[in-house]
């Protein structure tokens, strides 16, 4: 019982800032950031299918007026895009480790 207390606390904390509902402005900002990251990933020829689908989900949610879900999806899309950018840059050298010599 003792160990799970701090975990519950942590969870509660992480939701605190999201208290007020997101509005269209929040969505636009989050979507723009996600889109730039996604474009960069595409330019590196290393886009992920999940980035594209999450970005589309964000737009769909926003069109439906559900800005909470739209902002969450846009943030996730941005994270995915950034991860694919990191993958592309780190693989520039990392691929040699697997090469059959």
């Amino acid at each position: 019982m003792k160990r799970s207390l701090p975990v519950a606390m942590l969870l509660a904390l992480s939701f605190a800032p999201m208290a007020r509902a997101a509005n269209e402005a929040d969505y636009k900002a989050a979507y723009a950031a996600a889109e730039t990251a996604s474009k960069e990933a595409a330019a590196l020829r290393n886009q992920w299918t999940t980035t594209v689908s999450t970005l589309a989900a964000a737009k769909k949610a926003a069109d439906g007026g559900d800005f909470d879900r739209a902002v969450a999806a846009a943030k996730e899309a941005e994270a995915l895009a950034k991860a694919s950018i990191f993958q592309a840059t780190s693989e520039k050298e990392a691929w040699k480790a697997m090469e059959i010599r």
Partner: protein
Amino acid sequence: MRPATSLLLGSLSAALVAFALTSPRVIAADKVDPVADAKAFQNFFFQKFPDVKHEDFVNGPYSMNEDMKRQWQEKEEFPPYEFALDAGKEMFATPFKNGKTYADCFPNGGIGIRQNYPYFDTKEGKVVTLELALNRCREANGEAPYSYVKDEMASLTAYMAYTSRGKPMDIRIPDDPRALEAFENGKRYFYTRRGQMNFSCASCHVQSPGERIRAEILAPALGILNALPIYRSEWSGMGTTSRRFITCNSQTRALPLEPQADEYRDVEYFLSYVANGLPISGPGARP
């Protein structure tokens, strides 16, 4: 010391010295050496699967699993790509509107030449694959190009592959720095991890051929393109090299590039070159 043990010790130390000399070749400042790459690539698979006959590697998953091989041989008695083959033969003989046929675009009338594709076009400075050459032939004769992932292209390449069955893959790299660079690009693409799954082609086809990903057995990378185009039960239809690359990408959640993108042309060049000497076995049937 009895003579026998001293003899044993002598030969052991000689072997050790020899081994030290030939330890993984010292990498000169990243000079591209396709001949050495191909040798290392083939030896890797010959040593990893000593009881698989060299020419069997072109049969992909069926060289790795007896039960699957039986299912395949049963299918090969009357293979599902039979219709694509007949369609391809007919298309090959049907003249374009301007009276010419595919035979006019290809050396030896397009018969028995699949093992030389893809080749490096020194004029264009790029790799040209069989699928690209076919569409360029169509456009040169005023016909609309075929989709790279649909049945017409698969039928044409199926027929051309069939006319080369059994011939050893014979890809040449001209003495041209751009050709070496294309080869290196293809190699890099093959080993680069991509997609949210973070797999490279090598993660599946070098590190774990013969193992299962759910119902399917992974094919070894050696000779993996020799059987293309393939009729896949999964697609219940034919698949060209382009379609195979695209679906592999999307399986690892990497957004596929456009068919015949430079990366795909180069990785086809790399994979075909390292399979030199192994027989063409297309068109193939796969799970």
